[in-house]
């Protein structure tokens, strides 16, 4: 466990000893701010209207928080490849992987350390959005429970993307290749269910199950369904498992 912590800490420090951590967090904050502002402005307009002709109650969780969370997936799509691209590629290119692999560490410890380091950066990003949420609590009266489940969902979904990004980074020495491949795979997973309108019902169900974002809907609505939690956790485990196999096979091939 100490080894995992040591590696996670080094990973996190590496993001902040270069501009990359600040740039990523900055742009995440900028984009989230915009995705938060647009539904907020819309909600404001709607509530003015409903104040004039009452009858229909407006739900701030459904109209503002939910969409803002859903849009966060788009930011992940763009930002996460940049978080994970260097994790393994950089170590392979600079030869520091030789230090890690000849230290008394298990592969699992190294991979978990890297994963948790990336998760810590992501958590730091997400924590910025707490400012936006507290504004809502100051001036409005949203329900906190759906917001909490939303964050849980975002963390789990982010974990999926990060574990997959880690795997792709372990396949190449080149950071640009890693970032581009990760982006392409994320995008595919995101738009997988676009074809669901013109495929058979069985394929449609399978696609809906596979799509990462599809599983997030319930979290945004305030529902914690074990089906989705297990999907995300097994996705993360699978991504980390693939990374482990990739690092291991690299060893054998030399």
């Amino acid at each position, binding site marked *: 466990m100490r080894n995992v912590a040591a590696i996670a800490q080094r990973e996190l420090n*590496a993001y902040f000893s270069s501009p990359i951590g600040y740039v990523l967090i900055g742009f995440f904050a900028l984009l989230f701010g915009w995705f938060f502002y647009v539904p907020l402005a819309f909600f404001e307009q709607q509530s003015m209207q409903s104040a004039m002709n009452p009858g229909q109650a407006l739900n701030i969780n459904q109209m503002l928080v939910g969409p803002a969370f859903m849009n966060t997936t788009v930011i992940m799509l763009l930002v996460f490849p940049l978080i994970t691209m260097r994790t393994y590629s950089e170590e392979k290119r600079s*030869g520091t992987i030789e230090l890690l692999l000849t230290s008394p560490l298990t592969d699992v410890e190294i991979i978990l350390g890297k994963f948790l380091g990336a998760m810590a950066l992501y958590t730091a990003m997400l924590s910025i959005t707490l400012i936006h949420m507290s504004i809502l609590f100051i001036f409005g009266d949203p329900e906190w429970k759906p917001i909490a489940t939303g964050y849980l969902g975002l963390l789990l979904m982010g974990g999926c993307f990060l574990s997959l990004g880690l795997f792709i980074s372990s396949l190449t020495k080149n950071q640009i290749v890693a970032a581009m491949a990760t982006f392409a795979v994320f995008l595919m997973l995101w738009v997988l269910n676009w074809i669901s309108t013109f495929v058979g019902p069985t394929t449609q169900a399978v696609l809906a199950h596979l799509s990462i974002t599809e599983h997030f809907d319930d979290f945004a609505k305030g529902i914690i369904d074990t089906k989705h939690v297990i999907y995300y956790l097994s996705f993360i485990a699978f991504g980390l498992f693939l990374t482990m196999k990739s690092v291991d096979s690299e060893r054998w091939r030399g």
Partner: protein
Amino acid sequence: MIEVQNLSKRYGPFTAVDDVSFRAESGEILGFLGPNGAGKTTTMRIITGYMPASEGTAIVAGHDVFAQPIEAKRKTGYLPETPPLYPDMTVREYLTFVAKIKGVRKDIKGRVDEVMKRTWVADMANRHCAKLSKGYKQRVGLAQALIHNPEVLVLDEPTAGLDPKQIIETRQLIRELAGNHTIVLSTHILPEVSQTCQKVVIINKGKVVAIDTPDALTERLRGAVTMYVQAQGPVDDIERALLNVSGVVRVNVADRKDDTGIFEVDTEKGADVRRELSTVVVRGGWGLLELRPVRVSLEDIFLSLTTEEPATGLADESANTAAMTDTASNHGEEAPHA
């Protein structure tokens, strides 16, 4: 203690290391000598557990590196060819991190300070690794290998990229460490071996071509003289006749052209068979074109064992032995002798 048995490493059809066996006792410095691409780095990577072998075993400090990798790695310090530094960390941060992952639990700070002092990098403690000169990088790499006070040290070309003064200091340090550590170091600089190592393993194209002490290696070939014989006549007959001379151990046909043969005749230690050799050739009615002893230095041993055409190489190089030794020490990689 390091024990390597029948180690092989294949990449598809290419064999990088072929049936290598050697042993280094506790407190010993073993020099791993070979031209670039001979399989030195691959062998070291297997010993340190970076990659598994295709065949054979490596036992480090009593642990099989494949069966008990964690225990073996805990007792091994490794300096790869390029020091594995994180450019964005300071020397102190870096060594602290390495101490943690190498399993140092008590007084990490004290240990880092001690190692920095020992490898003369203390004055750069707060400098980022990216900004260090090549010599400092190499020494931080050495510090990194020493941090957990391992039983076994594996150093891949520890003096590469250092200036002459640093080379002398580093060799001195390695000799000091030898008492408590078993050290394997690789190099392609010959004087380095004779100056620091107790045992030499010469490796070429993945195969071990010689294992001995540097002194014995030179001694073995100094006493036993190889004669260079060029004679005109039926080559096979001449070969047979030469072999019959008492004191001759081995005859090697280095080259044959029509009716002229070039022979390398290995003789017993101390035996001077020049007279007998010439008599045999002349009695046979063949033409003796040339007969001279070939003197051998460590350079020659190395070259003869590792070059593509050992026979002609040996003959040609021997004529220039004096010149060669000069060039070797002027190579810039080698320190002026103190």
